[in-house]
């Protein structure tokens, strides 16, 4: 039951978890409001399909509500949610025969590590103005497209690490990869994205 005297928006995640355990549905809805935007983006980025992402989101929040007792507070509540979301999204991908073990970047000359690592004195250092640059819709769209162009196996490692904040060990366990393989994919994905952002900013 919802407590009408409570301002749910002002509650911490832990307080909301406690209330959901007591079957306070309004507390659960606050969690949906708070975390569904990022979960949806994450699901979209992994599945690259809006309908699949919507299914993933529904499965994620149903699971959160039903399994709230299994959240032990060892990690942040948000990380727990994004992890569940990532798992459901991966299941969708696997259903579409996602080949986790392939190395398609190696076969693509545009993704060649040598080219991705090239740099010179004329390179632009945009790191200090990155946040300001992001106000430009066009740049955000370019980055979005660049993430989508990464082959599945690289994109997923990148999202799990740099967006979800998972450790290399957790990613390795989840994807059945060695730690060096996780790092190698992450590194390539970052190099590719760095190059794409730089290319756009130097145009």
């Amino acid at each position: 039951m919802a407590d009408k005297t409570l301002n749910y928006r002002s509650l911490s995640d832990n307080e909301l978890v406690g209330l959901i355990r007591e079957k306070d549905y309004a507390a659960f809805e606050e969690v949906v409001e708070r975390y569904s935007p990022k979960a949806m983006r994450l699901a979209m980025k992994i599945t690259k399909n809006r309908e699949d992402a919507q299914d993933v989101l529904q499965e994620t929040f149903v699971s959160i509500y039903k399994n709230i007792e299994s959240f032990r507070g060892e990690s942040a509540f948000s990380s727990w949610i994004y992890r569940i979301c990532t798992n459901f999204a991966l299941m969708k991908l696997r259903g579409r025969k996602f080949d986790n073990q392939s190395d398609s970047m190696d076969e693509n000359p545009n993704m060649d590590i040598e080219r991705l690592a090239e740099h010179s004195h004329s390179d632009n250092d945009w790191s200090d103005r990155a946040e300001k640059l992001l106000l430009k819709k066009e740049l955000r769209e370019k980055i979005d497209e660049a993430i989508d162009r990464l082959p599945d196996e690289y994109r997923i490692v990148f999202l799990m690490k740099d967006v979800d904040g998972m450790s290399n060990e957790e990613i390795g366990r989840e994807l059945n990869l060695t730690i060096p393989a996780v790092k190698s994919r992450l590194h390539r994905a970052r190099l590719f994205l760095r190059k794409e952002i730089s290319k756009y900013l130097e145009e």
Partner: protein
Amino acid sequence: MRCKEVVELLCDYLEGDLPDDLKKELEEHFHMCKPCIKFLRTYSATSRVCRQVVEESLDDECVEELKKFLKTKLST
């Protein structure tokens, strides 16, 4: 150390996974090589920038639809 080797080590460097001697060698290279410093800075900003892009908000309509679905699903 060559610039190409520096790039190969960036991921480990940022995670603090490099042995001390290699870390020292890398940092010495950074002192002498401006392009590599720029590369390091933009490489490290890439994760931050992309995270922000992925975290952009959903439209309200989507959240409302999800809430409606969940209410029906979880109340049965």
